[in-house]
């Protein structure tokens, strides 16, 4: 017998199930009076520095049908590329940017929507700048382990072209699955980011 490693195994994941909203967005599902506000509703308060934007889209299954029971969380840097986290060692993030958001996909249309600010650039491990991006985490009934991906910005062609993470995608046409197209809605820039769980347009998901 060799010596034992004093390590534990990570608890295995299980699906969030169809009723993930009960525990994560109870007010949204009509369970009120427990706490005033669901967590993650505000990613950037009105005083946050940076360009205000809307991120929206759908999560689609392998048949192209939008998921109406998914939950999406996002995690992003502030306009200067700093995260509002005790683990952020590079500086102090804008206190008006929590950087974390949580929204269900709509129970009828399947659309999700975040109001936030455009994040700044963050360095890769070797110091090269990554293109501005928002981390996504998707859970739902039928998803056994939460899916990590990133959204990049369609109007950041130069930064996207030199992003060391996007450069790791071997099938170059798949880079497009991570890039949100820019539009406008009542004078506010919008980025539409559809997440395809499966099929020809399957989104690139990460093992982080």
């Amino acid at each position, binding site marked *: 017998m060799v010596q034992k490693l*004093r*390590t*534990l*195994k*990570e*608890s*295995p*994941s*299980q*699906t*969030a199930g*169809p*009723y*993930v909203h*009960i*525990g*994560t967005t*109870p007010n949204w*599902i*009509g*369970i009120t009076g*427990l*706490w005033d506000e669901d967590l993650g509703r505000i990613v950037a308060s009105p005083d946050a520095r940076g360009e205000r934007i809307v991120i929206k889209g759908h999560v689609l*299954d*392998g048949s192209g*049908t939008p998921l109406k*029971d998914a939950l999406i969380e996002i*995690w992003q*840097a502030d306009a200067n590329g700093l*995260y509002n*986290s*005790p*683990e*952020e060692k590079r500086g102090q993030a804008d206190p008006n940017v*929590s950087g974390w958001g949580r929204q269900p996909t709509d*129970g009828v249309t399947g659309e999700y929507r975040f109001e936030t600010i455009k994040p700044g650039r963050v360095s*890769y*491990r*070797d110091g090269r700048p*990554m293109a501005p991006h928002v*981390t996504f*985490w998707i859970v739902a009934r*039928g*998803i*056994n*382990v*939460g*899916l990590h991906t*990133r959204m990049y910005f369609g109007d950041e062609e130069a930064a996207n072209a030199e992003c060391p993470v996007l450069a*790791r*995608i071997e099938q170059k046409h*798949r880079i497009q699955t991570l890039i949100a197209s820019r539009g406008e809605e009542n004078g506010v820039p919008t980025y539409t980011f559809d997440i395809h*769980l*499966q099929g020809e347009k*399957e989104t*690139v*998901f*990460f*093992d*982080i």
Partner: protein
Amino acid sequence: MSDQGSFYQRDRSWHPAAFTPQYKTSVLRSPQYPLLSLDNTVSEMTGPRFGHGKIGPLDNDLIRNYAKTGDPIGQRIIVYGRVLDENARPVPSALLEFWQANAGGRYRHKKETYLAAIDPNFGGCGRTITDEEGRYWFRTIKPGAYPWPNGVNDWRPAHIHFSIFGHAFAQRLITQMYFEGDPMIWQCPIVTTIPDKAAVEQLIAALDRNGTLPMDALAYKFDIVLRGRRSTMFENRMEGN
């Protein structure tokens, strides 16, 4: 030596695969391309932190946090445990959110159609934050088993859903807790998406008679393990250094 390096690679053979046809909904919701392996960047090694100030005094008491006319029906239980990382160190200030069916196996959700009765005094959700030693506890009633549309006659064993935030977004986890001694655990198409029996057993809470409140509530112990990270001593040399 502090743990500030990147997170250990997730052991995908310990977790369920994405495509598990016995759980039918996974068939069209499972990515088919391989995941792109990404060494942690600061985007994954940071994460939101939630203050104890956000948590109300009844948030970890599902017996009282939705009670309207009296206590909910069901077996009164305490669920407690610790949140640890793979280095067996406690994870303080971890946010735990939990949700469950009532004693009859019915969820309070507008899309739920099971015929078992709604309990007017039971909401079915709560939350808490771990202390300095990674400990947490909450009070609830034991959820019931329920049938669900998968096979024509599939049933879920009694379970409580958990969502856990550690200190970094890379640690984000949702899982389920089962109850010691329940034979339905091993018949469930969702449980058996986990390929390893020992991994399933990691999700089964132990009945703890010593933790029981006499003449009041049974106790179940449920520890949760999040991903651990390298110490800076063992951190790989950065490319370009």
